């Protein structure tokens, strides 16, 4: 595992570099954008002198690189500026409650995905060659192909409008032991359902392929030849080995947390990090955008690193040399 440790270290050293570059690009985009965001935020009735005064106060008339250096200096000390929508509130005080909302339903989705997807995929693999086989693969591909942008309005129509079983959207929090929790409300069912359908179908399809691969291996034949019953062969030998590559999917799920939530939360009006990102971009709230992008890039980096490490542990043949997997 020496190579792996060196590789992980190299990747960890790369994380600040990438964050640095991403922050620079985002900052430049924000500062060079033609829309004068001070004017937008001050409102249409603000006098030009007022806008000019605010610009001067915030140092927006300085060269961009000076502004950037100042931003980085502040950010390193934990000051990410203030939110525009919630005046006087630090950006991080807005972001973390939003992130907590997104994390809640995503955690449930991940649990459900693995709890349902793995047995379903295994079951589908064991029915290879029967009439159920094309049916199950077809269902997996069909469900996994429908993007959230399509599935959510349709599920909303079916369950909220037509059947009236679920609320049409929103997020309903209640206080549990001093923490605002929204996952136990009826509002959480629709987002969880929509995301779980896609992920379960994807995971089951992948799991089926993995199980089929393992079933062909020699050690499975050995296990059967030594007289093991079918059940322990499947649970102890087949599923356990098929599960290993599945572990990497966790990383990809984590990576899609930020970007995947934008569409879903906009469609359903869930006040999570995705909706916040969308609102901030719409209102040119650059301090919030910077913080969201940085956090998103950081989460993405960690997720990808976890995926790579998982690959390394699972299959030592994948050479984690200094160059990394190619």
């Amino acid at each position, binding site marked *: 595992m020496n190579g792996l440790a060196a590789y992980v270290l190299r990747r960890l050293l790369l994380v600040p570099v990438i964050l640095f570059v991403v922050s620079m690009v985002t900052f430049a985009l924000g500062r060079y954008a033609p829309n004068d965001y001070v004017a937008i935020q001050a409102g249409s009735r603000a006098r030009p002198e007022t806008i000019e005064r605010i610009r001067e106060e915030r140092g927006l008339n300085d060269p961009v690189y000076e502004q950037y250096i100042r931003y980085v200096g502040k950010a390193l000390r934990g000051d990410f500026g203030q939110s525009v929508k919630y005046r006087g509130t630090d950006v991080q005080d807005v972001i973390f409650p939003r992130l907590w909302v997104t994390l809640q339903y995503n955690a449930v989705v991940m649990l459900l995905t693995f709890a349902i997807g793995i047995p379903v995929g295994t079951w589908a693999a064991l029915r290879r060659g029967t009439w159920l086989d094309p049916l199950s693969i077809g269902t997996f591909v069909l469900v996994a192909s429908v*993007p959230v942008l399509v599935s959510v309005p349709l599920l909303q*129509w079916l369950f909220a409008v037509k059947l009236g079983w679920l609320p049409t959207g929103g997020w309903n929090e209640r206080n549990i032991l001093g923490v605002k929790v929204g996952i136990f409300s009826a509002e959480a069912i629709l987002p969880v359902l929509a995301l779980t359908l896609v992920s379960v179908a994807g995971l089951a399809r992948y799991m089926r392929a993995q199980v089929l691969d393992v079933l062909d291996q020699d050690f499975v034949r050995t296990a059967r030849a030594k007289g093991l019953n079918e059940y322990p062969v499947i649970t102890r030998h087949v599923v356990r080995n098929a599960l290993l590559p599945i572990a990497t999917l966790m990383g990809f799920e984590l990576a899609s947390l930020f970007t995947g939530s934008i569409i879903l939360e906009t469609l359903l009006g869930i006040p999570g990090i995705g909706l916040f*990102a969308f609102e901030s971009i719409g209102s040119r709230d650059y301090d919030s955008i910077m913080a969201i992008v940085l956090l998103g890039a950081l989460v993405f980096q960690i997720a990808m690193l976890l995926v790579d490490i998982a690959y390394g542990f699972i299959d030592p043949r994948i050479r984690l040399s200094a160059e990394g997997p190619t």
Partner: protein
Amino acid sequence: MNQAELTAGSLEAGEIRRTPQFRFYRRLVRRPVAVAAILIILVVYTAGVLAPVVAPYHFDDADLHNTFASPSGDHLLGTDRLGRDVLSRLVWSAQTTVIISALTVIGGSLILGVSLGLTTGYFAGRVDSVIMRVADALYSVPTFLLILIINATMKDRIKSLFHDIEDFSGIGGLVRSGAPNFFLLSLALSIFGWVGMARLVRSQVLSLRESNYVLAARAIGSSTPRILFRHLLPQLTNLMVVTITLSLGAVALAEVSLTFLGIGVEDHASFGVMIFQYAGPTNVRAHPLLLFAPTIVVASLMLSFNLLGDALTDILSPRRR
């Protein structure tokens, strides 16, 4: 390939020359699912290309006397809140998909991807490692978020650039046709979309570079561009077609998603605009049919791309299931 197939192939081989390309397409055509997927994709893209000819109405033709009309002979899929023909809007939306896909494939996959892949593959060393580090970095940032921000912040600047171009060249109607948004969206997608193609071309060139025929070409004094474009690139056409096909679905979905968020295409029909306008509890309660039109098209397009992608990877690496 097994022995029986080999003998069968050699027995069949008469006057017809069976190239690997031919075998590849024959295997593809033998899969009904793949053929169905190709047909659906072709129908949508052909409708998009021929939109000005086949669409019964313009996507913005409002008829306020005839709003929310049910499907009829005049309006095969009915009309929406402003009396616009839904079928025509679908066809024109497909045109948006075609334009964005074409621009992104040309810009991202072909120009950026192939040239960078050829460069890194053929000239190993410092250039290679720099470009591949950039590719790694692009893989490890939240792409969708950045494309979103690029589009939101640069939109007005690109628009004024196109205004200048209009004034300077005397071509009118560029901005009104939505060209700046098409350009910007494809540009943003290309910036993040070249990595897959570059990696593919690079890995292929790396292995082909050492082959005997390249050595022979170099020995008779062929120039490097000639080796790259005459000897190496033609070997890769199959894989390039597959890679582009696999990326088209993601490009189409990105356009629809960004436009849905109000950040992608403007002043033009798009499936994203349609979903935005027809979704939502109040709209859906009164007129669910309107929502079904764009969602069913987008869903079948995505399904077709996935099925085709499965078939293609299956043909190229038969061990995978």
